[in-house]
């Protein structure tokens, strides 16, 4: 089981959901999807790195 793949899959589903829930159409949806997806994945990776020195 790959934790990163699961996290990315979760981020994909949630980002897609909110893009369609909150934006009425096309390019706005794509923008929100990308923004949410990148924040979720990059944020999780960054947080992981920050936690790395701690036991």
């Amino acid at each position, binding site marked *: *089981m790959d*934790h990163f793949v*699961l996290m990315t*899959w*979760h981020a994909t*589903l*949630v980002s*897609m959901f909110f893009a369609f*829930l909150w934006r*009425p159409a096309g390019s706005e949806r794509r923008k929100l999807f990308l923004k949410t997806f990148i924040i979720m994945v990059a944020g999780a990776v960054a947080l992981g790195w920050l936690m790395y020195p701690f036991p």
Partner: protein
Amino acid sequence: MDNPSKGETATDVAKVVSAAPPLLLLAAWLVPGLGHLILKQRLRAVVFGGVILAAFLTGIVLNGELAVPRAGAPFSWLAFAACIGNGALYVAGRLLDLGLGNPMAQGFSYGNTFLVTAGLMNLLTVLDVSDIARGLKE
């Protein structure tokens, strides 16, 4: 509410403030995407239905638990409230003995997360259907 603007009739205003039909909300909760389909929002219906089903199935495959409330475990009530949001998927899962949860499985926590996420997303779609039916959103 503000006074009706120019060109807006009293009927239009009444449409906005009236409650959404309970059967529509029930359908939206029971089957992910059905509420939007009834409101002729086909793309949203397909995406919401697909995303929620995918999250639900991922949770089941990862040995997550479709939560049930337990006496003395207040957080189990929160998990139950989220999982019951899956509607018919929750009922079917329990009836088919899916989603019993295996705490020893590697994916147990991830599975729970996916199941809870699916339920919460479906509850949000019910609210969205309510807004659309009441004329508060297109």
